[in-house]
């Protein structure tokens, strides 16, 4: 039973309650830095780092934080890790840091991170909080990767800088620009809800008695 709960803690954030695609949190970075795959991955990794670090600290010291000042404390912890991530990125991959610009610092106000602290890390043991953080962090990275791939392939004809379609491809530049960010996420959500609806319909059909199902799908 314990194993299932641990697995559930992790998997929940990855897909079913994906922070970007389902809960609609953290939209600012998802739209702003997904114009290339490299930037998306870097932002995903930075957010993962901040989320894991914050969950670790918050969960470890949850007993010492009085209820009244909990939000301020969480924000302080998150801001610390974001500052560290910012400095780390600038030292290790300066070109990526320049491309991400102010959005690394904006991880602080990514509602997903504060949400995980408030909803989970502050109420659960360290082990489970870490799993929860991993799950949400990976879910965020997956969403970023999906967005980044579509936008870079269509908007630039490349994936991670490598040409995908050959030199005769005329890139659909709009996807690398701000409108493309909005449209990509919008259509992505559309596709996902269509898939979800199909699945729900199929599951419902399976439960109906034979005759009813045939009449419905006719």
């Amino acid at each position, binding site marked *: 039973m314990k194993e299932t709960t641990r697995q559930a803690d992790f998997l929940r954030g990855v897909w079913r309650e994906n922070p970007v695609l389902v809960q609609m949190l953290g939209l600012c970075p998802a739209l702003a830095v997904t114009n290339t795959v490299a930037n998306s991955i870097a932002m995903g990794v930075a957010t993962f780092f901040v989320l894991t670090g914050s969950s670790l600290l918050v969960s470890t010291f949850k007993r010492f934080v009085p*209820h009244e000042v909990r939000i301020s404390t969480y924000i*302080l912890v998150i801001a*610390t890790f974001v500052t*560290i991530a910012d*400095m*780390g990125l*600038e*030292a*290790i991959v*300066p070109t990526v840091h320049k491309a991400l610009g102010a959005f690394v610092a904006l991880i602080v106000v990514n509602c997903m991170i504060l949400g995980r602290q408030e909803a989970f890390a502050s109420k659960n043991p360290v082990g489970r909080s870490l799993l929860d953080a991993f799950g949400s962090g990976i879910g965020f990275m997956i969403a970023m990767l999906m967005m980044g791939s579509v936008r870079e392939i269509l908007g630039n004809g490349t994936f991670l800088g490598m040409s995908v379609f050959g030199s005769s491809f005329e890139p659909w530049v709009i996807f690398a620009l701000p409108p493309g960010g909005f449209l990509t996420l919008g259509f992505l959500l559309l596709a996902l809800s269509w898939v979800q609806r199909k699945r729900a319909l199929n599951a419902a059909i399976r439960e109906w008695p034979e005759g009813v199902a045939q009449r419905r799908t006719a």
Partner: protein
Amino acid sequence: MTPPTPPTERPNVAAGRLLATLAGAGAVAGLLIVFVFGWTQPTIQAYKARMLQEAVYEVLEAPDHYDTLYAYAGVLHDSPPPGVGPRDKGLEIVYHGYRTDGTSIGYAIPAGEPGFQDVIRLIFGYDPETGTILGMKVLESKETPGLGDKIEKDQDFVSQFQGAGSPLKGMKARDVTGTDPHEVAMITGATISSRAVIRIINNALERLQPAFQSSVAERIP
């Protein structure tokens, strides 16, 4: 799944305890940040210095050394004049490139002004003795990919600046005569961005002429 626990009655926490928690968290946060700062700063500064040096070398025909000079009120100084802060609007930094034997190559001048989408920052090389531009490199631009960003990606455009005469004259590609060294052909479809680059260089030179004239006068024996 355990059933949700009913909300417990919270005893009133002393204000002192609240402040102590925040102060404690703040102290730990501060310590962590200072530690990482000390650890990353050397790498960051070294990278910035290297990037600057590469840019200066690119626009100045490979000097052997360069000095950082501060132009203020029409004079070049070796260090910022007293009372003038780094944010002072009248202060401009230029880099003087020269060879090992002391011959001056020229000045690398960073400048920036609004272009089509946002501010364009570039650095260009200038030789005040001949009045020619030695090279141009775009440092930062947010111009439209595929159109405006040609100001940095189109080598034909960029290489025009080498040897161009100041002040620059931006011309449409079909109007270029080829005989006037002041002419710079603008990029078709990116006229505003091209014009911005030319304007940035001309304006910077206009601002810095007094400082250059006085330093050239000093050097001629």
